[in-house]
Every structure is written in C-alpha cells, then in structure tokens.
C-alpha cells in the first residue's frame, strides 16, 4: 500500500505530505523514482531528502534537522492556495464513490455515533492540491455510498459539482490495502484501476459499499520491486508504519 502510494509521486513534484502513512510514502518515492520531489509538511517544514530517522509525527526532531525550510504553517499551506502544490496525500476514515472523505463525524453531527479527530490539514489539501491521493484501509464500513460528512471534498455529487463549488484539482487515486481506485467518466466516480497481488475483484467489490465498476484494462498492481522494498525499510527502519 505504501509503495503503491509512493508511485503516485512523479519526479519533480511538489508534494503536500499528510500525517502518518503519507510521510513514509513520500520517503519511499524520494529514495526511488522521484529524487527531485519536494515535501511540504503543514507544521511548517519543507524538505528535500527524507528525514534521517523514523518519524512518529512530522514535527519530530529528525524532520527539523536538515530541512530546506522551517517556517510557519501559513507559509507552507499558502503554497497550496497559491496553486503550487502538485500532489497532496491524506488518509481518512470514510470515503464515498465520488472520493469525498470523512474524518469528522459518523452519524448525526448533533449526536455522532463516532466522533473522529477532524480535518487537521486534510480539507485544505483536498481542496487545493492539483491532485489528491488518499491512502486508506479497504473495509465495507469505510467505503460507503455517501459519507455522513464531507471533511475533505472529492468530486462532491460527481460530474461538475466540484468545479461549481469553486475548486480545481480533485482525487487522482485512492490507494488501499487491496487495490487502487481512480475516478473515471463524466461523473468522476471511483472505479477499480488495479488489484494488488493476492487480492481479487470479487473480494474488493465485497468490501466496497457501492457497486464498484472495474476500469477497462484492469490489471494487477506491480509487486514492490527490490529497490522499493529497500527504500521502505530505510525509511521505516523499525517497522513502525508497516
């Protein structure tokens, strides 16, 4: 899942790196196919090379040392609004067929069944990055027809709804532990683009809360290469995030 996420970063991309797994994915990309990527962290850090030790949070000392820039949140998140961020990475608790992500409330806002931590910077990244990549565990309760609350906007009700709301960009890929989903067609609904080795279409559909359609040319995700695995081990030496 982390390797598949890392592959979404192109060399030279300016990448907005969200909490937790995205930090590892950025490091893997940087050490393999994207040596010229630039990483932006909302606490106020810009990095070229990934941190020299495992990070539990983006503000940990190894992410500060040798940073390209240690500054304020506004200087970094302002780059999103300025249109200078190619790709943004976020996680999520609940996602729907149009790539809208909920990390705020399950159930009624006034009396939620589950109160989730909230947006952090995810809503900003989803709204303003040129392409959004989401990383999530693939379970039926998380992949739903319609999210209860749109924390981080995807294509909203589909079609042109997102641009009508005043937003560019939008989801480019959803990386799960089973597969990769991508938006497709005029409605911009998420379709199954590739299935990871050891998983299959029926299983993926069974764990998805809407009628998930495969993309023409559906393939198996390429297994992690030796170089990608080596990079993953180098970034997460202690296996904290695997």
């Amino acid at each position, binding site marked *: 899942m982390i390797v598949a996420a890392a592959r979404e970063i192109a060399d030279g991309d300016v990448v907005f790196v969200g909490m937790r797994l995205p930090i590892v994915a950025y490091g893997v990309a940087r050490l393999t196919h994207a040596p010229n990527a630039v990483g932006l962290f909302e606490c106020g850090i810009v990095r070229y090379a990934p941190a020299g030790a495992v990070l539990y949070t983006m503000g*940990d000392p190894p992410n500060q040392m040798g940073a390209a820039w240690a500054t304020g949140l506004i200087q970094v998140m302002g780059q999103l609004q300025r249109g200078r961020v190619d790709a943004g990475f976020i996680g999520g608790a609940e996602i729907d067929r149009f790539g809208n992500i909920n990390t705020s409330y399950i159930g009624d806002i006034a009396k939620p069944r589950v109160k989730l931590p909230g947006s952090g910077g995810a809503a900003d990244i989803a709204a303003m990055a040129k392409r959004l990549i989401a990383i999530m565990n693939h379970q039926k309760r998380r992949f739903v027809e319609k999210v209860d609350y749109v924390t981080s906007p995807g294509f909203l009700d589909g079609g042109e709804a997102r641009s009508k709301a005043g937003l560019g960009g939008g989801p480019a890929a959803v990386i799960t532990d089973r597969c990769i989903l991508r938006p497709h067609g005029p409605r911009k609904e998420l379709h199954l683009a590739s299935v990871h080795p050891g998983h299959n279409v029926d299983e993926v559909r069974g764990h998805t809360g809407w009628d998930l359609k495969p993309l023409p040319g559906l393939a198996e995700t390429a297994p992690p290469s030796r170089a990608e695995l080596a990079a993953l081990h180098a970034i997460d030496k202690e296996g904290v995030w695997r």
Partner: protein
Amino acid sequence: MKDKLLPLDRAISENLGPGDAVVLGACLEPDIPFAATYEIIRQGIGGLNVIAPISDASTDMLIGAGCVAEVTGAWVGNVSGGLGHNYRRALEDGEPGPVIVHDHSNFSLAMALLAGAHGMPYVPLRSILGSDIARSNPAFRRAENPFSEAREPVVLVPPLQPDLAVLPVQRADRHGNAHHWGSAGLIQESALAAEKVILLADEIVDAEVIASDPSRVLIPGYLVAAVCHLPGGAHPSPMTGRWRRDNQFFEDYHRVSRTRDGFLDWLREWVLEVPDHAAYQKKLSQRLDDLRITGTAPAAITSYAVA
C-alpha cells in the same frame, strides 16, 4: 524592563479564568505546553474554549478532566495513537460534560488567528469550499470575490482573539523576550492574536543572548504577560534541538484512556497527585533524561555587526 518570571501556578491563576478562550499549543505536534495543561486541570479551571490546530493529546486530556466547554480546532486525538477517547465520550455520550465544537481546518484556523493578530475584519479563503466544515461551523460566511469578473466563491473567516496563549519556547530572558526555532506552526499568529501570552521557557538566559539574534525572536517581551522556567515543559511532545517525543507516553495514554475509569486513574497518577512540574520531572526521572537531546548541531554564526 519588568521581571516577568513567575512560577507556573501563579502564571496560570493570574492570567486564566473560567470560560476563557485559550491557545494551548500552536505548533501542531511539537511544542505543546503539557505542563500548563496539567496545571489548568489541577486548578480546576472550567468552561474553557480550547483553541489549537492539533495539539496531540492535550485537548483530549482537558476534555476528560472537565475543563472544556468549547473546542476551536482542526483535529483532536492522539497523533501516533489515533482517536481521542475523551473527545469521543464527550461528543457521543456527553461524558463528563457536553462540548461544543467549532470546526476548522488547519488553514481556516490559521486565517482566523492571522486576522486576529493583525486586526483584519476577516480573511477570504478558497479552502473549505465544498467541505461541510463551512456548514457545521456557522461562524463562516460565503461570498463572491468582488475583484473577479467570473463568479468566484470564497469563504470569509472571522478573526479569533483568544484571551490567552500558552506557548513553549526554547529560551527566553526574564523580561519575556524569547527565541523559538524549528517549524513554527501558528505560534507567532497565536502570540500576536492573544490578549495575553505566557511563555514556557525550556531555558532562561541573559537578555544579551536573546538580543544577539533578533531575527529569531518570537515576540518581544513587552507583549508577554509571564515567563515560566520549565525545562521539559512540553513533555511528552518534542521540542526542536531540546527534547525528543515520548512516543511510549502517548501510546500508554491512548491505551488506558480507552475507558473513563482508565483515564481517571491516569489523571490521578500523572496530574492530580503530582503537585507541580518539578515533581513531574522527578516522577519521569531517567525517562526524561533519555529524551533529552544531548548532541549539538549549531547553526552558522549570524552577525549583526555595524562596522
């Protein structure tokens, strides 16, 4: 200049009252003033509006302790652990009491504090368009960009001017002039937006040390109400160049706070039965020493010579 050095209990009791709006942690994951979080709980100050973009488990602790009526923030939980159990109990079951959430994203909260810091009536932003945050927090307004020919929706964010901001810094002098370095999150916007500022200084230094590098000053001392000398006052959060993050502490908290009783046991052990920060340091003992960054990686000399 006035000597502003105060013990933490007096700094809090003299500058924070029930119902106040208070910034507790402005740098997201690092530099969270946990020593102040604990002291506020010990003093039993209630009805607070806690303002923080993220602040790791600090907000969750305050909620569980019954100090919080409102949360103005982007994220409440446990960064390496996941969900905030006290936050969940408060919002799902009203335990120990109801909490009103003023939903924000990091950037919308940043704009609110920026507006507060500089006296702007509001700030327009493009973010949170399309997000339900703009709907569930009634403080926001939708508008059209008056300078744009084509229709261009924006969200207007009103200013926040908190009663108090409690901000950890690496070093300060007794007058409140302080250096802060590493990622800054919203620390400067918070310092300038708040009516009053308390600094938790990891080290107290002579005034000449701060004056030697004015570009590294967070805010000048005339804007500071009190300075507390609290080495490791941000524990378990990290502080650039000084302290590593105590990951185990966050993990343990996450595990035991899963139940209300577990949290109350934790609260007794780590807050209520610990009289002050010195006792907290003593309780942590070797563990705190092990988190201390002992290496040096100094910045190049920065000269302000005039001739």
